[in-house]
């Protein structure tokens, strides 16, 4: 957990960016018993435009509360990608909603990119609004930072009971998609073009 401990989740306001970060932080701190600090970007951009939340995971209490260069960046919109991708740490992991994000040259070296059609998966499950939970499952499988069970428990605790089943299904779909993807490795640069064709 020490080497990859700073995470940023970003997207449009309304995509569930904050809930996604809450699930990650809750899983690490409440379920697994480690330390997590989550902060959100408050400001005009939180009302409709790019929305982002940061989580710092640690084995000891977190001191400095802000993330400047995340190890993992989860983006669900093009605007969020353009704004935050340059801040990713070299060698960091970039997770994209592949139907909503077009990769345009990666500035940080050796970035590992993984994509998932989270919105389409969410629609197939029954509700577009659970795309953030699909992304959270995908995040869990790719990074391996937090156990599947802990994340699943945190999802369960963070959503209204009437939507619990739907969200758990969304989580599992994202996680399973991630496991499959992990086996085939990160996307090659040539595959980004392929990704963007689906737009």
């Amino acid at each position, binding site marked *: 957990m020490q080497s990859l401990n700073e995470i940023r989740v970003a997207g449009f306001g309304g995509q569930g960016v904050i809930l996604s970060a809450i699930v990650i*932080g809750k899983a690490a*701190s409440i379920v697994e018993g480690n*330390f*997590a600090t989550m*902060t959100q970007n*408050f400001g005009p951009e939180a009302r409709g435009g790019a929305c982002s939340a940061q989580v710092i995971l640690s084995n000891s209490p*977190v*001191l400095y*509360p802000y993330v400047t260069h995340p190890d993992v960046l989860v983006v669900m919109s093009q605007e969020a990608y353009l704004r935050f991708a340059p801040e990713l740490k070299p060698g960091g992991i970039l997770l994209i909603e592949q139907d909503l994000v077009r990769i345009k040259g990666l500035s940080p070296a050796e970035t590992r990119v993984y994509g998932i059609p989270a919105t389409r998966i969410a629609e197939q499950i029954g509700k577009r609004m659970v795309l953030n939970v699909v992304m959270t499952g995908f995040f869990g499988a790719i990074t391996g930072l937090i156990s599947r069970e802990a994340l699943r428990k945190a999802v369960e605790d963070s959503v209204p009971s009437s939507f619990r089943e739907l969200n758990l299904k969304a989580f599992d779909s994202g996680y399973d998609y991630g496991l499959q993807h992990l086996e085939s490795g990160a996307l090659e640069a040539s595959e980004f073009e392929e990704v963007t064709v689906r737009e």
Partner: protein
Amino acid sequence: MHADPQGVLTGAHFLDGDHAACEGAIAAGARFAAGYPITPSTEVVERFAMRAPTVGGTFIQMEDELAASITIQGAVWGGVKAFTVTSGPGFSLMMEHIGYAAMTETPCVFINVQRGGPSTGLPTLPAQADMMQVRWGSHGDYEIIALCPNSPQECFDLTIKAFNFSEQYRVPVFVMLDEVVGHMTEKVIIPPAEEIEIEPRHFTKKAPKDFRLYEPEANQVPDMVKAGDGYNIHVTGLTHDQRGYPDMTPPMQDVLVKRLQSKILDNADKICLFEKENVEGADVVVVSYGITSRVAQRAVDQAREKGVKVGKLRLITAWPFPERVISEIAPTIKGFVVPELNLGQMVREVERCAGGKTRTVRVSHAGGTVHNPESILNAILEVAR
């Protein structure tokens, strides 16, 4: 006395500082809040409005902060524990009624989630620039108590402490968050109700005919009564005698105002909470509070790695100012380093209490974000040289 289990959400939660402060207030027994929501403090009352019906409490959204800050005092005299919540511009409007609470010895709690100022300033971004206002903002001579949490956990713990102090000393007590602490989400452990110590209101045991509203007990603090219980209650902001009746004479002013001061200052050692680490044998001591204490910790750790003998003093109680601990440390070190998210407020107190026995170096910041730890590190290295 222990907390009422009805208001205590025992367990581990992932909460932001604002929500944790609200849970602290409810655990402490607060059953009334009035407020005029303002960023970045809104979440406190938002949660209270939602939680109040489940604990038999009331929340009133007022027309402004003047109304909020006096309504809570009416509720207190009606017998409940009450608080209000605000930030910079709203806090400025509350000043008149803070003086009223001090003069009438009305136990109540104000939660101020500090944002950048002056005026409307930076609504969504942090500062620690109300630290002098909280002490001196209302006119006249009076004392208050102000506490500075640096995590959501402390927002819970210190809000309880604030209510306890307010009942014990009958003063307005302030929980001085900053936007970062207010909006940061972390693990908050809420203990079982029987492990939470609560200071109950000190209602008089005297019969109405023997009772005088402002007759101080042994600890210099008068006992309270509740409106409607048959006691004579005359509560006024005018200088008053022990019955509470106006007595606007120099001798009465001398007795009353000096007691308002001494009931706090004579107990300063009990009220002043702080965290002291590696101060013995240190060359430099970093004095900080609130979110800045966490940023400073990183600088302190970095300085230690470079072999500098640096200690830390984290102020949990800002007011009354912990004069004794500063004046004891001063002659033993090369200097204090005081980072804060303002252009120099508590640093003046550190300097005053150091009394010329050591250097005091400020690391100012106009607010809007936290310090770069490097700026604090550089000040430590410079003083250690």
